[in-house]
């Protein structure tokens, strides 16, 4: 397998075309476009209730150039398991089966079917595109919404920290696990290229900002995604059979405050909270790097 190492090598074919219904600079749409560059046309994707499930088109229009099914909220990994069982019994082995869910469809309402599929080592790729809120219903808080984030149902700031989905999924001992960011497209594309060649349960978690939910400008989507990584808040790594490899390390980390202050959703964070988060990021960064 030749990993794509420059943007020039990225295939031109769009499997999620322009004209889709996402907002300008929708992080979700960027994520799926990047992933499909690696996965290619022999891919079946199932997406539970989420923005991503709906922006692909409505009525008789679609932006999808691959088979797509808008699944019930809880079910994407279960549906994917069924699709794989059906392909297997027909002897079809060269098709990627992907369940692509937001944070709710992954960590909350979709968690039951996700953990089941992971435990069964289903031969699927589950992707979480994470904008850290329930954007499709208006941006309410979910389990991976960060501590103190202001959302329509946590107007005083979310009282609990973000659930560590990577640790939870790592505990299932997947064949492949990775974090990714839309601001690092080559890193993301390579991870999908690798995942594609691995049999078994694969989990990829992409940080994909939503300007609306995060309270940033439309044109700041990629910039803020990059700051998350450059501050050490969002680590880029992959684990193959539990062996971790950091795939990108910022040369000099920027203060988390630079990331937080751009976002309206963090307006409830005072200096003490920012300092606590910085300390937490520092600690975790040391842990991972060693």
């Amino acid at each position, binding site marked *: 397998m030749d990993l794509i190492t420059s943007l020039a090598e990225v295939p031109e074919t769009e499997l999620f075309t322009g004209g889709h219904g996402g907002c300008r600079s929708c992080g979700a749409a960027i994520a799926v476009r990047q992933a499909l560059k690696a996965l290619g*046309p*022999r*891919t*079946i994707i*199932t997406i539970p209730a989420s923005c991503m499930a*709906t922006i*692909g*088109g*409505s*009525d*008789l*229009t*679609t932006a*999808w*150039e*691959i*088979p*797509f*099914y*808008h*699944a*019930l909220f*809880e*079910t994407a990994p*279960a*549906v*994917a*398991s*069924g*699709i794989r*069982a*059906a*392909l*297997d*019994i*027909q002897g079809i082995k060269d*098709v990627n089966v992907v369940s692509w869910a937001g944070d709710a469809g992954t960590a909350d309402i979709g968690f*039951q*079917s996700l*953990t*089941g599929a992971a*435990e*069964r080592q289903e031969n699927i790729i589950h992707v979480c595109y994470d904008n850290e809120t329930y954007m499709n219903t208006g941006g309410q808080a979910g389990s991976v919404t960060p501590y103190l984030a202001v959302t329509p149902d946590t107007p005083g700031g979310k009282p609990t920290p973000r659930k560590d989905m990577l640790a939870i999924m790592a505990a299932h001992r997947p064949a492949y696990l990775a974090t990714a960011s839309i601001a690092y497209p080559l890193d993301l594309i390579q991870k999908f290229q690798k995942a594609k060649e691995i049999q078994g349960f694969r989990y990829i978690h992409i940080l994909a900002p939503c300007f609306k939910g995060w309270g940033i400008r439309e044109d700041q989507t990629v910039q803020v995604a990059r700051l998350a990584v450059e501050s050490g808040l969002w680590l880029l790594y992959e684990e193959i059979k539990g062996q971790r490899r950091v795939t990108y390390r910022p040369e000099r980390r920027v203060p988390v405050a630079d990331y937080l202050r751009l976002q309206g959703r963090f307006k409830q964070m005072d200096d003490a909270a920012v300092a606590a988060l910085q300390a937490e990021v520092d600690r975790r960064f040391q842990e991972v790097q060693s």
Partner: protein
Amino acid sequence: MPQLLNGNEAAAHAARLARVEVLASYPITPAAPVMEKITQFITEGSLKANFVRVESDHSALAAALGASMAGARSFLITNSQGLAYMSEVLYHVSGLRQPVVMAVVNRALAAPHSRFPEHGDAIAQETAGWIQFFCENNQEVLDSLLQAFRLGEDERVRLPVMVNYEGYIQSHTREVVDLPDQKVVDSFLPLVRRPVLDVENPLAVNTVASPAVYMDYKFHQDEALKRAGEVAREINAIYAGLTGRDWGGPVSGYRLEGAEIVLVTMGSLVSTARVAVDALRSAGEKAGLLKVRLFRPFPLTEIRATLKTVKAVVALDKNIVFSSGGALAREIRAGLYGHAAVPVYSYILGLGGRDVDVEDLMAIYRQVRDQRQAGAVPAPYQWYGL
């Protein structure tokens, strides 16, 4: 070849003979033995199928739906709590016109918690757009399941099918069941693939439907369910030709000739009612029985044709739609409305597994006969056996 099988075993053999390709099922009492038996068939090599050992009933139907959309013949088993839990998925399957077949081992819905048989679980899903068969005995379970695959997959139908039989009374009781030859079943159930999730022909399935299109999809779905009754009759005739067993169409009568008071019921109660009708006839009563085999689509035409000349109908419902009464009674009254002014007496009985025997049905018959003689208008519904 005849074997002594309980209802669950009959269902498992039907799945094997139908060569189901994906089994995605979650255990629930008293249905779990069906899946266990099928996994044994897979392990011993008498069935080539993939078993998705899902982590919930809701995921079971989701996985079965995924498999069906990707072109495989899929099957599952559930009842009561599991059926209620997967309710929203039922609507996806029927709305997406996928011919998933499901055996439902009828059991009462909590609360209070019950493990025992009645039809409330299936009736609660009557609007889900699934074809619903109710089986009288274990032979019919096997035969109806085989017919269900062909019916659901028929071009004119393309709908999911629920085959109902009662927990314990049927699931765990052994009867003689004749298993057709695999060759006969293969000729009856050719494998036809119609994947909608296919990389060779990409489609977007279940995009957001605006008011401009949603209702039209429902119209077509309704038309398909209505067609299913006639197609079911056709398929039964073909099956009868191959096996010698004719279950009739959506309804079948017993001793209806000259019958004045007709018992109408579904499921295991039909067997009990046959015995009761024989006893009543011996006592000089003009009793008859109408078995409803297909509850959805409800056979309105057959109901009208068979019942319009009788003096009274006694609907026996092992279910209750609270404050409204029994589902069968309601459907029968709707079918007769505007066509014949036949009084329909509605009885709620057997809920939560409360036993109903021959004497009970004879007592109900006499109650109705007395109420008729007194000239009383039938109550909306009455409870029996409290």
